[in-house]
């Protein structure tokens, strides 16, 4: 197994971890963290998979560079939304929080 493939496989697992976090965690900040983990996992797959034969590939590297900057912009916007939500409702979670969860979720 080349190191590119190893990091791509790690990226898959990190993506699944992040997806689980987005689905299962309640706190908004934790969801933002989980969402960022999903992004990092996808970046690892993108670069690792392209470089599994060992040669550096500038095309996915440039795309991931772009992606990192977009991810921080999304995080900043998400944090602002979370703060606004918190200021308006005093809660740090969305959905059925504060009430009993229904059987549909």
């Amino acid at each position, binding site marked *: 197994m080349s190191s590119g*493939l190893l990091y791509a496989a*790690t990226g898959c697992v990190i993506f699944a*971890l992040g*997806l689980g976090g987005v689905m299962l965690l309640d706190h908004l*900040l934790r969801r933002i963290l*989980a969402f960022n983990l999903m992004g990092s996992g996808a970046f690892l797959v993108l670069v690792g998979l392209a*470089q599994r034969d060992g040669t550096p590939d500038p095309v996915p590297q440039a795309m991931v560079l772009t992606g990192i900057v*977009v991810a921080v912009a999304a995080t900043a916007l998400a944090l602002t939304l979370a703060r606004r939500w918190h*200021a308006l409702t005093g809660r740090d979670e969305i959905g059925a929080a504060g009430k009993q969860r229904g059987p549909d979720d």
Partner: protein
Amino acid sequence: MNLALAFDVLLAAALLWSAWRTLSTAQIDRAVVMFIVFGLLLTLAWARLAAPDIALAEAAIGAGLTGALLLDGLAALKRTDARRPARRTAGKVMVRIAVISVLGLLAGTLVTALISLPPAPIRLPAAVAGDLANSGVSHPVTAVLLNFRGYDTLLEVAVLLLALVGMLAVGLPPAHPGISRNSMLPTLARYALPLMVLAAVYLLWAGAHRPGGAFQAAAVLAAGGVLLNLSRLQAHWLPASRAPRLAIAGGFLLFLAIAAALLAHGGLLRYPPEQAGLLIVLIESGLTVSLAVNLAAFFLLRSTPENGQIPPATAPRESP
């Protein structure tokens, strides 16, 4: 060679462990710190993948700036975290087990698919190397970013602008209530900032022929802005102030103007080879200033206390 592989396995395990701890740790401030640790470990992974450009960006943006934003958001959201009762009904546990097993299956399928994937029919590194002489720069990543896939970068700058507009529309956070006054920090900032500006200029210039470029330079400058704000040498920016707005829009408009001018000569961002180097330096210089101010604005742009778009949750100020 075996030692390198052992290091990779160790690093991959550390990445997985820190990602897991980010999600599973009980205290939310520890979760944020674990995420920053994850970002720093990821920087090492990028270095191992022979991607120094991404490693630089990850260290400055992924771990640095995102970490600062998250810690700042944590201070605003944390107050409610303690009083949460831990409700774990039997139904919730069932859902949890179901989701985790499905995701385990997903991860397993993805890894199996990765390993059994046939080799790619198109050799992108060779294609980039073949056209590098006409791109105006000699560093392949910069050539892809600013020339071969310049429209990606153009749209990315637009996305950053859009995120900032979204933040302005939603309502900016109030000014920092009180950061611990550490007398070391202003001194450190005063010494570090000239070096950071120097490093940014170097990174911008180096981008043409070695790892570096507008993104990394902008990240270092933005980090300088955050450092100045935290050490209280530079106040926050108010949304009404014109200078940051002009600086943010300027780089994007310059990029757009060059793209539009080139549209008349054939294609979107298809530079004539003899002027490509000059155009790329021009665009990158504009982008460095623009991106730096835009990234710093995510942290520095604060609502005025007077118009009070977001009153602090602890002290409601609508008394009259």
